């Protein structure tokens, strides 16, 4: 084990590792591209759904159960199925990553919305706010912490799972994991895993920083 980590050090600092089409720099860029795009698409689908069911209280049962059903979807199976249906492209990977991210975002957004004190909503209506005004000025700001938790959780899962792109010939940091498996080069596998974890942690810190900025804004506004 010690040997493995020692070799990891030299693997990570080797100059030629960082440049070129299969260098670490390029692989990180690819990994970021896959993860961020998938999470954005997932957020574009899941946020409106979560807000709508939270605001209206309608369809919550169906949506939440569908979401927990979605959590059970095996990513490997989904990638293979979409690949067999549509041929080789990044689509199978994106479909699987979006399917992975949507449930976390929907359930947390919904949870955030339901956690808003009904009395606060009533007070807002009493002040003459319309439905969309209550949603935008009261519910969303109050639900924001949980919404952000959902987004952060989704992003972490997506970053860890985007390794699957390498299974269907694409790049990203998963390349090191799958190539390392085929070549039984554990240093390479460990290197890939550590880099994925680092990317996930950095992105999570960035999002929590963003969250703090948004919070300050909210506190000032209210």
């Amino acid at each position, binding site marked *: 084990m010690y040997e493995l980590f020692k070799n990891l050090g030299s693997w990570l600092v080797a100059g030629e590792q960082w440049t070129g*089409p*299969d260098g670490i720099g390029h692989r990180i860029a690819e990994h970021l591209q896959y993860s961020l795009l998938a999470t954005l698409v997932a957020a574009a689908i899941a946020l409106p759904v979560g807000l709508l069911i939270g605001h209206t209280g309608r369809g919550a049962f169906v949506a939440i159960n569908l979401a927990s059903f979605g959590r059970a979807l095996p990513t490997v199976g989904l990638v293979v199925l979409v690949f067999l249906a549509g*041929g*080789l492209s990044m689509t199978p990977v994106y479909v699987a990553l979006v399917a992975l991210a949507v449930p976390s975002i929907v359930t947390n957004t919904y949870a955030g919305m339901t956690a808003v004190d009904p009395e606060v909503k009533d007070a807002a209506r009493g002040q003459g706010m319309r439905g969309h005004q209550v949603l935008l000025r009261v519910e969303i700001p109050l639900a924001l912490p949980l919404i952000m938790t959902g987004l952060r959780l989704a992003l972490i899962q997506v970053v860890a799972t985007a390794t699957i792109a*390498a299974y*269907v*010939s694409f790049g990203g940091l998963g*390349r090191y994991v*799958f*190539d390392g*498996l*085929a*070549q*039984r*080069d554990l240093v390479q596998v460990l290197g890939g895993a550590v880099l994925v974890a680092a990317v996930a942690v950095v992105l999570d810190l960035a999002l929590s920083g963003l969250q703090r900025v948004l919070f300050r804004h909210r506190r000032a506004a209210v």
Partner: protein
Amino acid sequence: MNAQGSASSPNSASSASSPSSTSSTSSTSSASSSSSPKHSPLPRRAILGGLLAAASVPALAACGGGITSLDGQGGGGGNGGGGSSANGVTIGTANFTENQILGYLYAAALGAAGVKTKVRPNLGTREILIPALKGGDIDLLPEYQGALLHYLSPKATATEEGAMQNALAVALPEGLQILPYGRAEDSDAFAVTRETAAEYGLASLADLKKQNGKLVIGAAPEVKKRVVGVVGLKEVYGVEFKEFKSLDSSGPLVKGALKKGDVDVANLFTTDTDIAAEGWVVLTDPKNLVPGQHVVPLIADRKADSAVRKALARLGGALTTEDLTELNRQVDKDKKDPEDVANAWAAAHGLVKKR
């Protein structure tokens, strides 16, 4: 040491009804195979072996029939210094269709010889499988002569079957052995589309050098580090590619990429029917980079007994390259199960009694 060590339990398991014969065979064989130069009072060892075997018989009788509780204990071995398959043989196979078919063919042949088997399909690459074979997760593996030889000793020069068999015997690590190779052969091919061949004037691997830095090669990830792969193409032919794409072993990724033009050169198997069906051009190999790749069983010493040897030798003598290619086609194209096509072939060729 290893080989004789594990032999005691199956030996006594199979002949628990005749304790006297068990103890006598094991005592003699442990005496004859003792090789330690230090304290080697032969009689004492023989007595010890005899005692162990004798002690094991009542224990076994008590637990009522061939349980593996004594596996791995000291004692003697039967079967001419080899192992024993009496506790069953676990066959591991690599992550491509043909290897799984071969695994099930081995299982069919061994089953007919009364050996219990378990096939573990799709375990991964040779790089993963051989450590697993050494570690005891699997016992037997359908291998290919040249590829195995180059994995074990990358500088190997033997290309002729007999010479490779000898070189393999030398190169194999402790505890593993190869059995006689079979008739069937599945070689590595480097193929291009007809259009690519015409465009760049490619007929042999040597022609690739003229296009150095221009072509993209697609292959399974492990081929990047293998002699029969990127390493050898550079050393033997001086070929350098623009890019290596990690795909799969003659599977949907590499064939799809070749068809679409995402790669120019693809590493395929010669038993893949798509090569002919698609009209792909297999580049010739004037400098014999790609060695002969006859199918050869790689087995752990602990399981190699005469029943296994004979059954696999019969199979090896009967299975031809054409048969293997056809079986691949049935699995890949007709979507039949590897196990079913293997059993059907074995039955049709008299290796198993028809049911």
